């Protein structure tokens, strides 16, 4: 056993640093949460105080529930995020498999071309995207958002997944070929389960930006029935008056679904089932 690892001082210092970082990272979330349960006056008087009997109020949540179609916004955000992630993972993994598994002319160039998207923000093309969406009649539909987010997520997904797929044993794939499995079965049944941790990483990386995005919903899908949560919350922020109770309550609730998705994916991050397949 490594001595440095068992030294209690080192362990304490390590955990101290991690705990400190956790506190710093969670502090803003904590402030939002406690203030969402306070009256407007209490929020401004003492922003950092816990809600007590005097200051406790659910007025923010009540406003959010009454105002507009908050559940619809929730649903829209959820559909867009989950569908985009699904397509990013599916197409990203397929492209990565092709790039890592098959030798063909231009393989290298294709890989570079796909990776280029990591460096060029998709928002640069907003005007062109809007024109395309108008031309295809997809404006004000969830599909507009799903397609854009899929395009936005693919470069990183292909990049990460192709690296991982190169590490999957060739023997395993060849064993499948000799046993008569189709390339699709090899991809879905043998390779995908082995790169599951990488898939989870890609999913987590893509999920948060999609969920939080305000830009594309505002431009491509601003109408009431396809509004996402982040766009929907904007009604409480006015030019002169902002309903802080409602904003904080809406934000608190918006955290929950991503938190749930994150928990699902992070379990996959830790779990690996490679053991036993190859030495």
């Amino acid at each position, binding site marked *: 056993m490594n001595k440095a690892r068992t030294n209690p001082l080192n362990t304490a210092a390590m955990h101290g640093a991690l705990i400190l970082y956790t506190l710093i990272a969670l502090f803003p979330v904590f402030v939002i949460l406690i203030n969402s349960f306070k009256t407007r006056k209490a929020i401004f008087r003492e922003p950092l105080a816990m809600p007590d009997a005097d200051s406790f109020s659910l007025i923010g949540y009540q406003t959010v529930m009454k105002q507009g179609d908050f559940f619809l916004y929730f649903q829209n955000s959820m559909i867009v995020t989950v569908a985009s992630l699904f397509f990013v993972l599916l197409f990203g993994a397929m492209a990565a498999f092709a790039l890592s598994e098959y030798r063909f002319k231009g393989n290298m160039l294709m890989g570079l071309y796909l990776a280029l998207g990591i460096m060029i923000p998709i928002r640069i093309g907003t005007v062109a995207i809007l024109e395309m969406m108008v031309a295809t009649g997809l404006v004000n539909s969830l599909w507009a958002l799903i397609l854009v987010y899929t395009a936005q997520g693919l470069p990183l997904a292909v990049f990460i997944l192709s690296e991982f797929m190169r590490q999957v*044993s060739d*023997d*395993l794939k*060849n*064993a*499948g*070929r*000799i*046993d*008569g*499995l189709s390339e699709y079965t090899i991809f879905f*049944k*043998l390779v995908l*389960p*082995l790169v599951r941790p990488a898939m989870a990483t890609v999913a987590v990386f893509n999920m948060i930006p999609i969920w939080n995005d305000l830009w594309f919903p505002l431009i491509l899908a601003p109408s009431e029935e396809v509004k996402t949560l982040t766009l929907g919350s904007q009604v409480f922020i006015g030019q002169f008056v902002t309903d802080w109770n409602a904003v904080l309550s809406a934000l608190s609730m918006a955290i929950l679904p991503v938190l749930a998705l994150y928990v699902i994916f992070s379990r996959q991050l830790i779990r690996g*089932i*490679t*053991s*036993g*397949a*190859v*030495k």
Partner: protein
Amino acid sequence: MTALTLTNVNKSFGKIHVLKDINIQIEEGEFAVFVGPSGCGKSTLLRVIAGLEDASSGEIQIGEDVVNLTPPSKRGIAMVFQSYALYPHLNVRKNMSLALKQEKQPKDVIEQRVAEASRMLDLEDYLDRYPSELSGGQRQRVAIGRAIVRHPKIFLFDEPLSNLDAALRMNTRIEIAGLHSQLAASMIYVTHDQTEAMTLADKIVVLRDGRVEQVGSPMELYNNPANQFVAGFLGSPAMNFFPAGVVGEGGNLTIGVRPEDLRLADDGALSVTVNHVEKLGGDTNVIAHAGDQRITARLFGQHDIAAGQQLQFGYDSARAYRFDDAGHRVR
């Protein structure tokens, strides 16, 4: 009947020419071993036979059929990989039966063949386990079982013992030899280990740099190597080579003598200085040098020899091999 015929098989990856005009015939029921140093193309050749790589030119014939364009699963072959390559999400039974299911064999045939293979390999108690719950040797047996259930025309082994420890390797080697006589099937076995080649093969194919150097039975190759490479590759410890000048012979030849053909003799032609002695009990290996040439002698029995000692080795001239500059045998 011939199980496999390769005619002028070539394989290139881009500009790299990996296999050069390979011509090999393997008879039915024969155990053929492809042996050679790493990078000699033996694994690539096996992959070409399996159909995992396409030959750039030439003809591959399994049984009566030319199979150049046949996918791996339809060639009537089964392959055992170095890394076992078991399906991690399937238990032993399903690992073995997957290929038969893909062939759409009836259920009772599948069950009967899995039972047969698991009895042969002592895997009956492990059928419901997953690969991660098995030891290395058991995994290798499952991999072999996966090949047996298919009743292939040819078994292909790609360095199947490399991942096992020494004791297990020997046992598995004996098991494979047993399987070969039991199944009476044609087998092709790739290895870089000359001991495996010598002990298992009916026919050894020695490869170097993508070319076939020599083909023959183990003893044929051992007693009658065609060139210096084959002579040096087979046999352990390896054959000694020294210029003819060292023992006062004329000509620009290289002389090769096997370590076991050297004996202690006061009037021996070869005077050496001992570097190191390995006492194995039954044998004594003497590692010495004559000038710049390293000489290994394998003496039967126990000898009291110490490092630094001067010795004279003699050998029977009829058991020495002579090679020219290009490494070809001079008879």
